[in-house]
């Protein structure tokens, strides 16, 4: 298969430039939101809470909060990244270029993964101001953050192609991702839920992501790490397949 690295790099650079141009929205807003969570749940309420699975409460919620911001930001950013060119008409250039699905995804998703990693680093640095924590497997954590960021960037990409209004663009992150992350064990361990809620909670795929990231931090998780990893990879593969079909059929891209 032919791959044009220069085209992919051009898309990557443009996406990164867009993120830095909108640094306030892309970086400062999540930092502020996360700080507020840490002040309220980490420092004030967390000081009165029992440790969860042997981890102090303030530290326990870090992976969940990181996931909350990461999913929201990555999905919104990627969906906006493809929706805006469709909306303004600048997509003509991408469609008329010698660029296929591979270059487009490497450019868009690579940028999303990089942004995810930068965002995670900033959130962790912010968290350090409020609570003490250690990361058990830092390299694995970085890999997992990038994997989740890449998967949800792909998901956001699909969303941005599907959406035909700004309202639709906001619906999925706001009405589905955020509630599912809240209910996915961000602030509690699913194991601590009374039956049958512990089983019901596992129907929420985000719970697996939060649990997976928590494992890379503290070596403890609600579900086996292999399951979290497998589910994330599976989601990535499904999204790539959907996008490949979109490019082949030209759905919502080519008239």
């Amino acid at each position: 298969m032919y791959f044009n690295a220069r085209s992919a790099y051009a898309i990557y650079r443009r996406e990164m430039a867009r993120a830095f141009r909108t640094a306030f929205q892309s970086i400062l807003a999540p930092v502020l939101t996360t700080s507020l969570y840490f002040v309220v749940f980490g420092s004030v309420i967390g000081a009165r809470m029992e440790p969860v699975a042997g981890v102090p409460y303030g530290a326990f919620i870090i992976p969940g909060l990181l996931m909350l911001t990461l999913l929201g930001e990555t999905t919104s950013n990627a969906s906006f990244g493809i929706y805006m060119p469709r909306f303004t008409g600048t997509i003509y250039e991408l469609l008329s270029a010698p660029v296929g699905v591979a270059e487009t995804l490497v450019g868009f998703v690579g940028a999303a993964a990089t942004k995810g990693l930068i965002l995670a680093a900033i959130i962790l640095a912010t968290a350090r101001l409020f609570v003490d924590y250690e990361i058990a497997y830092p390299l694995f954590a970085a890999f997992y953050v990038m994997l989740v960021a890449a998967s949800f960037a792909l998901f956001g990409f699909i969303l941005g192609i599907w959406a035909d209004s700004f309202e639709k663009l906001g619906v999925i992150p706001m009405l589905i991702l955020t509630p599912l992350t809240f209910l996915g064990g961000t602030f509690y361990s699913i194991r601590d839920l009374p039956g049958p809620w512990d089983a019901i909670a596992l129907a929420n795929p985000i719970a697996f992501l939060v649990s997976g990231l928590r494992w890379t931090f503290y070596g403890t998780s609600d579900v086996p790490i292999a399951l979290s990893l497998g589910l994330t990879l599976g989601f990535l593969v499904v999204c790539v397949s959907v996008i490949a079909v979109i490019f082949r059929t030209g759905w919502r891209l080519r008239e």
Partner: protein
Amino acid sequence: MHEPILSIRGLTKTYKNGPRALDNVDLDIRPGEIFALLGPNGAGKTTLIGAVCGLVRPTGGTITAFGQDLAKDWRKARARIGLVPQELSTDMFETVWRAIAYSQGLFGKPYDPARLEEILRSLSLWDKKDAQIRALSGGMKRRVLIAKALAHDPELLFLDEPTAGVDVELRKDMWQQIAALKERGVTIILTTHYIEEAEEMADRVGIIQGGRILMVDEKRAMMERLGTTEAVIDLAAPLAALPAEIAAFPVELGAGGTVLTYRGGNGQGGGRAQVAALTQALTRAGIGYTSLDIHDSSLEDIFVGLLGQKAEAA
């Protein structure tokens, strides 16, 4: 005769729940020419360009560019094609420089600041290279779109209504730039509904209406074949009837016998020669005249006439 740089056969596009935008279009574009595609709004000009450039999925037909089938070898072909769209679609928050550098990379070319500078200078945009595109005037934005399309040095360039909404001075400036591109060997296909533009620039002209190509010809040949000369002669005294030697010309007597109108010729000098012969014949017949107004039909007259005939036939 060179191989066509672009060859379109049986191209058809029917939009979902919409009309047939292109109806079995055949078209060959020769290397190095400026080809003007003329047609009223909604004739299918933009759809035709979109089909070649990958924005529109054709319903049927084949497109071959540089000898390669666009359905299969689209990557190679697209790397050699540039497009300046009709709408001013640019990333408004990007600077001019970044926007054109992006285009160069997107089309797989290595970053070449010297070439980008050359392009910007040729379009009088160099001093705006660090400006955000949103801060530029409409005419400048259009030139940025041209610069973006030229950043990968295309051999075949589509200009979709390049001077729409552009003032007269800038339009002439744009014509010069298009002529300069042709000098460099770029093949140019432009769509326009300013007939004057086609008349000024084009080597060949195609007329499209309702998704069908009505006619393709050399601009000069088309004007010779379809062009006419009209001469209006005000007579010194009213005539009751035309003498036989005058009636042999394609003339009509009107306004109570005071105006003689000639319609004929081929629009490329033939008509004018015949009008000269007519005036001599008038003098010989002793018919005086006080004024003579003569003009050749423009491409616009031909275009309007052709579309009018088609509408009557339909």
